[in-house]
């Protein structure tokens, strides 16, 4: 009773609550709404996990650079003009702080801070300081080069950074996700590129709702009715439905792997592609079989993959391939950045189909993604209603997980809880 004005009891219960005996997995809604938890996430998750920076194809030539916010910090990735090596630098002058890479992308031999004209080469060395004789001879200018991120590495073209020098290496971190990045890269012998044109949108919802949504097979039929109608209007046969499984890939990464009615530019033909593309798709498929054998070729060509790499990278290899990352700017707000990945030198007709598939399903002006945004924002609004404290994520706990179950989300949340430590076990007021 609180009629006496006493505060309700404060229990320290885990915010992620798994009860295997009762087939119940639930997540407290404080995880989605609390400003304190958001601040803890910035530290415990985004300052310690490996985060996606970009794709090597975006900086293919010496001196190529792209500016990127990563984990909420302005960084830039550059391929050294002398060494040809990839670098990821904090985008800040070592003198007094101004950003030194001021264009979104380009090619440069040097990066000059416009404030006092300190100049750095593309390897990060400080090469120019106006009025150098004003500094004492003992000042070590070699220590004032651009600051690289604590850890940087790439896997099959995907470049990651980590702000924790003590973190495990990238390969160990990616764990079972490596196998799926291999499937994506092998579809084009590793010769993949990011297509020009970036989707930079935002959602008024907690970032973890998009992590869930990106690997949620359960919502597709109900939320995306208009997209499936669009496919049917173009001649796709939906009868086969979606058949597949979910897998926990370790370290919070998870994947849905499934067969679906839609076509895949590599290499599953459907009427939407047009008769003229039949032969090209058959040839692509034959070449996959030759290189990888029939079993792996079929897995590459026929199977769809929605993969979540903890904490905020999604690579969905479906009717097109999206590389999507998202970063919270508050408990109820996130910025989303998404690119389209495709084989280099793809046949123009197939590239066109791939582009069509991306923008109609994955793009923020397509026939599906706007409705995901609506769903996520609707959840966030619903949380504010109160009365219900927990989200239920129990689907499929009592069977081998299927593609429309929630095992992949449970993998994410277990890792989230582990990464958050005692801050994932805080005051859930009146929780039961």
């Amino acid at each position, binding site marked *: 009773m609180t009629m006496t004005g006493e505060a309700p009891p404060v229990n320290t219960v885990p915010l992620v609550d798994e009860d295997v005996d009762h087939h119940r997995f639930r997540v407290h809604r404080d995880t989605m709404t609390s400003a304190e938890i958001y601040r803890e996430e910035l530290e415990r998750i985004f300052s310690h996990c490996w985060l996606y920076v970009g794709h090597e194809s975006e900086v293919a030539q010496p001196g190529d650079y792209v500016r990127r916010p990563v984990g909420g910090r302005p960084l830039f990735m550059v391929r050294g003009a002398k060494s040809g090596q990839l670098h990821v630098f904090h985008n800040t002058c070592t003198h007094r702080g101004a950003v030194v890479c001021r264009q*979104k992308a380009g090619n440069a031999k040097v990066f000059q801070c416009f404030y006092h004209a300190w100049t750095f080469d593309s390897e990060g060395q400080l090469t120019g300081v106006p009025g150098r004789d004003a500094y004492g001879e003992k000042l070590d200018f070699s220590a004032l080069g651009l600051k690289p991120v604590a850890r940087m590495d790439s896997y099959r073209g995907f470049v990651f950074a980590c702000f924790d020098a003590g973190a495990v290496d990238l390969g160990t971190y990616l764990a079972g996700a490596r196998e799926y990045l291999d499937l994506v890269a092998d579809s084009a012998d590793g010769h993949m590129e990011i*297509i*020009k*044109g*970036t*989707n*930079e*949108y*935002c*959602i*008024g919802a907690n970032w973890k709702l998009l992590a869930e949504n990106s690997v949620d097979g359960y919502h597709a039929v109900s*939320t995306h*009715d*208009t997209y499936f*109608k*669009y496919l049917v*209007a*173009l001649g796709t046969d939906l009868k086969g439905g979606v058949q597949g499984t979910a897998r926990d890939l370790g370290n919070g990464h998870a994947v849905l792997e499934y067969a679906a009615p839609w076509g895949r530019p590599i290499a599953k033909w459907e009427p939407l592609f047009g008769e003229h593309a039949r032969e090209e798709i058959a040839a692509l498929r034959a070449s996959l079989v030759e290189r990888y054998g029939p079993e792996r070729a079929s897995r590459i060509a026929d199977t769809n993959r929605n993969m979540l790499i903890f904490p905020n990278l999604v690579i969905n290899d479906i009717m097109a391939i999206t590389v999507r990352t998202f970063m919270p700017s508050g408990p109820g707000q996130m*910025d989303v950045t998404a*690119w*389209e990945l495709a084989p280099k030198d793809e046949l*123009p007709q197939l*590239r*066109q189909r791939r*582009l*069509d598939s*991306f*923008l*109609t399903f994955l*793009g*923020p*002006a397509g*026939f599906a*993604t*706007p*409705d995901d*945004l*609506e*769903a996520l924002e609707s959840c966030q609004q619903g949380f504010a209603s109160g009365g219900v404290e927990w989200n239920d994520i129990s689907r499929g706990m009592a069977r081998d997980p299927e593609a429309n179950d929630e095992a992949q989300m449970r993998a994410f949340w277990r890792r989230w809880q582990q990464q958050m430590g005692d801050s994932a076990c805080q005051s859930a007021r009146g929780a039961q």
Partner: protein
Amino acid sequence: MTSLDERPTAGKLDLGLVRRPEVEDFLYREAQLLDDWDLDTWLTLWAPGPTRYVVPCNDDPDGDPATDLVLIDDDELRMRLRVERLNSRKAHREYPHSQTSHQVTNVILGAPEGAGADAELPVTAAFTVWRFRHGKASYYVGRYQYRLVAAGGELRIRAKRSVLAMTELRPAGDLAILL
């Protein structure tokens, strides 16, 4: 000045004689139909035959839909299906519909290109589209690039490209509406 007897008449429209006020009237009519969510009538503003409605990505305003990722690349079929979607109750992002205000200014006519039935009139205009829904306001600012034709004695749209001036789509969230 165009004398009265040179004015376009029903059944015959010479693009060479079309002046800015007629184009403005046409664009205002389009804006009104979009604001009224009368999308079926809006579709009738498009020319018969192949049409194209394109919105490039914010960071690639010159993007070519054949090789680059764009936000929207609708031919006549996909545009019809987009309208079907927006008219349904299942386009959740637009059910209920946003209230919008499509504002068109800075209308500039280019010189007509091509001859006879294939003649096209290039037109550019500035746009500001306000979108209001559930107490939230968002905006789209940019430039229209039209290719207008004369069909059945009326101006009609052969192609429309809406190029956003915003460096990112983030201020608007998504692009579920028509610009």
